[in-house]
């Protein structure tokens, strides 16, 4: 048995995304509740229909208890929390699909969100790497000044440049293409066009990353509902069927230095399993929502997924192939770089579902299926979902 077409996404919900020093006006808990309620309404369900919940550990949100009490859930049959950073939102799709495919639950909601700009969860305001996820990095790597995410991903990017000749301009084209998409999306935070010169003129943050290679920090939450196959068919909106789903994890997850190949990420490790389950080849994809905390990771994932051969991701991007109208449109919502960051990839899932439903507005693609979504977090944890209609 596999999870092929055993579950579908039946509802999505997002709060407004914002970047204001005055704050979002919502606590982390309140914005998570709002996203969940919107997903329930979108799915045509009642609160009491939700019998599973997968909250994110980021920020000051609820565990299952808070959702149960504030939503008045009658019966929670399944709850778990993952610890894969930005991979959570897609990795949770696998465990949610397992829960509904086995009859443990019928409608599982996945939620993440925080005040990542105005609140205490702001990554750039943290002195270092918190939590047990990063033990060896904190002890053996941070003393050398590798203390925040961009330092570690900068090492990977530099290695890719040395191995394959990829360039800062190629990284910059990721930001430029995603900005073009964001201008089509009213919920995207970044509203001004960006040229490659804008990118090249932006200051170094951690070489080879310039300011516009780094994603936003923002406030907001998002949620989606995974329903069992028989419960998905009678929903008001077209279900987004899970064709393939897998999570993957890098060697020595809490140390980047000791990995035999620091470019072999969880997304690359998970990808063959997801494609095999879906019966889809990388060349069959019509669009991809790739987790993009840094521009370079889009290029790395295009290669890790098998959409480009190693070293060909940069030229592929530079040729404009990830634009709407290119061979593989990427992040038609603007991604973390230009829409919003704070939902552990759930904003990427929401955009994939909108594309499959034909609800993507000005960014709508003519034929979006099959569409791939990734999450990537904690320096290499990854998850790959392939969705179809």
């Amino acid at each position, binding site marked *: 048995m596999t999870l092929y077409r055993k579950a579908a996404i039946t509802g999505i919900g997002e709060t407004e995304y914002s970047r204001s020093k005055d704050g979002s006006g919502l606590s982390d808990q309140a914005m998570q509740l709002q996203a969940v309620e919107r997903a329930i309404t979108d799915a045509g369900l009642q609160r009491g229909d939700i019998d599973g919940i997968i909250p994110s550990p980021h920020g000051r949100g609820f565990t299952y208890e808070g959702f149960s009490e504030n939503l008045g859930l009658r019966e929670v049959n399944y709850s778990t929390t993952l610890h894969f950073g930005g991979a959570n939102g897609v990795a949770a799709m696998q465990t949610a699909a397992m829960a509904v495919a086995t009859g443990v639950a019928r409608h599982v909601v996945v939620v993440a969100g925080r005040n990542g700009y105005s609140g205490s969860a702001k990554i750039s305001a943290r002195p270092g790497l918190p939590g047990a996820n990063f033990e060896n990095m904190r002890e*053996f*790597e941070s*003393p*050398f*000044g*590798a*203390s925040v995410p961009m*330092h570690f991903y*900068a*090492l990977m990017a*530099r*290695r890719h440049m*040395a191995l394959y000749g990829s360039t800062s301009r190629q990284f910059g084209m990721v930001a430029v293409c995603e900005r073009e998409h964001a201008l089509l999306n009213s919920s995207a935070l970044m509203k001004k066009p960006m040229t490659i010169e804008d990118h090249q003129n932006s200051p170094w943050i951690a*070489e080879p990353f310039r300011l516009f290679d780094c994603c936003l920090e923002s406030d907001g939450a998002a949620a989606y509902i995974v329903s069992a196959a028989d419960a998905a068919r009678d929903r008001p909106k077209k279900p987004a069927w899970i064709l393939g789903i897998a999570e993957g994890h890098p060697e020595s997850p809490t140390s*980047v*230095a*000791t*990995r035999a190949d*620091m470019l072999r990420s969880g997304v690359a490790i998970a990808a063959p399993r997801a494609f095999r389950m879906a019966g889809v080849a990388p060349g069959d994809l019509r669009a991809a929502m790739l987790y993009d905390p840094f521009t370079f990771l889009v290029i790395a994932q295009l290669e890790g997924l098998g959409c480009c051969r190693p070293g060909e991701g940069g030229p592929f991007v530079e040729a404009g192939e990830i634009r709407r109208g290119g061979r593989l449109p990427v992040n038609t919502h603007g991604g973390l770089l230009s829409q919003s960051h704070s939902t552990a990839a759930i904003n990427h899932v929401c955009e994939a579902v909108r594309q499959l439903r034909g609800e993507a507005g000005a960014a709508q693609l003519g034929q979006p299926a099959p569409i791939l979504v990734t999450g990537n977090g904690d320096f290499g944890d990854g998850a790959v979902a392939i969705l179809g209609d």
Partner: protein
Amino acid sequence: MPDLPYVVAVVELEEGVRLMSNVIGVDHGDVRVGMPVHLTWDDASGPYPLPKFTPLKSDSK
């Protein structure tokens, strides 16, 4: 935290072990992936001396 700018590098020892470190004693723009380096202990790096690396002399010109 070292003075800015500083070079963070993954260094592979001849024995095969890899570790995070800094490359010092060289302009940061001259550091290259694959550059041979040798160990130097940085006694000024805090309560514990840290193993850091400088380019091998033969490679520094």
